[in-house]
């Protein structure tokens, strides 16, 4: 199995607070990897370290390395705009731009220099198709994205990420604000998308992790306690802390 993302002795500090403590983790290409753990354990912090979203936070200090395709993410040579094109991100609350459905998806490609209308049309259709959204919205692409349902908005956000041809998609609790049907649609979508992309998802939903993740990493108090195939983590975890968390004995 090929590594897509590698973390090596990664430490992150928010000022004095030691939020990530020596994380070593290999995330595999074209797999869905779930990050689980109680609130405040560092899983979202780790996720945002992958595409350097933590750069926007004051007083953040990072030591150690993260590699994507063997290139160090925190190298001074790295252009974070290019990095965030390669590593897309979807957040808990759907956040479509206050513009049309079409313009939401076309925004990223335009920023990266695509001007040809036909090319943009193709990109928009393909991205919306990939998210099983095109048929639902094809007759109103010029209408505001804010008029879509929550589930549709979240799929639009995924389409927006796909439009710039990423390799990796990071999702931070992408379905926690959605109804069960929308949740299942997003999960089905992620299972299809992993054929082409590497997916890392933070989730509080154990059943979701067990449904869609190939691998699961359990974080606790800034440390990664256990990592392995999801079926092993959820059936026979090696560490008692993992067992106690997934069985709801704490959390």
């Amino acid at each position, binding site marked *: 199995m090929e590594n897509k993302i590698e973390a090596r002795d990664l430490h992150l500090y928010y000022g004095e607070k030691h939020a990530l403590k020596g994380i070593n983790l290999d995330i595999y290409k074209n797999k869905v990897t779930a990050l689980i753990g109680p609130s405040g354990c560092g899983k979202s912090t780790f996720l945002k370290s992958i595409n350097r979203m933590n750069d926007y936070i004051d007083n953040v200090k990072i030591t150690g390395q993260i590699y994507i395709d063997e290139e160090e993410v925190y190298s001074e040579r790295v252009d974070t705009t290019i990095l965030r094109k390669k590593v897309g991100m979807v957040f808990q609350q759907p956040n479509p731009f206050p513009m049309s459905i079409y313009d939401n998806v076309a925004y990223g490609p335009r920023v990266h220099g695509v001007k040809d209308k036909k090319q943009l049309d193709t990109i928009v259709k393909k991205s919306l198709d990939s998210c099983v959204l095109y048929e639902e919205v094809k007759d109103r692409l010029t209408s505001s994205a804010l008029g879509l349902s929550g589930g549709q908005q979240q799929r639009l956000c995924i389409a927006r990420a796909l439009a710039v041809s990423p390799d990796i998609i990071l999702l931070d609790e992408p379905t926690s604000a959605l109804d069960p049907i929308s949740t299942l649609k997003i999960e089905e979508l992620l299972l299809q998308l992993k054929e082409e992309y590497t997916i890392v998802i933070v989730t509080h939903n154990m059943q979701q992790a067990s449904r869609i993740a190939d691998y699961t990493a359990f974080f606790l108090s800034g440390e990664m306690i256990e990592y392995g195939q999801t079926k092993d983590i959820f*059936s*026979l975890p090696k560490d008692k802390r993992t067992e106690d968390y997934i*069985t709801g004995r704490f959390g």
Partner: protein
Amino acid sequence: MVRSRFEIELKALRTELNKMTYLVIEAIEECVVALKTQNIELAKQIVENDIKINQMERAIEARCYSLILKQQPIASDLRMISTALKVVTDLERIGDQSADIAKIITTLQGDSMYRMIEHIPDMARVAKKMVKGAIDAFNTNDLVLANQVVMMDDEMDEYFIIVKEEISEHIKSDIHNTDIGINFIIIAKYFERIGDHATNICEWAEFKTTGSVNEHRLL
């Protein structure tokens, strides 16, 4: 404590399983008493009590399904509940076999029958020990004990061979012993099957602890 209701329900499940085990072991013990003392009334009582064992099986199954539905158990909780579903089936079958033994006892007559059953009480003793040991191993995740119970099945098989040979000699010595001899072979076979069910329970004890049965990973 988080999930305290779930903990209470798991505890109740274990208690119900232990109650069912107690009834099953009692049935085995009473079969031996009924056999030795030719107590037809006790034998009839064993048959009637089997209804209660069957009802307990259904009640425990319903409890397990409810837990699966409401609590979505995983890891050790899932193994506990899923193996409870398996174990109640074996306990219910042990209850059935005891009732079947008791039904045969109600049809036996005459003093000669006791002379034929020299080693059948030994089989009953081993069966009871195996069932109790299997459930103890299941409750305490004691795989050493589970293995000891499985080894006792060899002793059970040896007794069965001895009993068959003894009964065969009795039949050869007097053709009028044929019917009663066949009945005792059936009784011996039921005790031997009880030992097999105890062995099954030990396999589920292994799965509950390790996720594997006979080192074959199931979960």
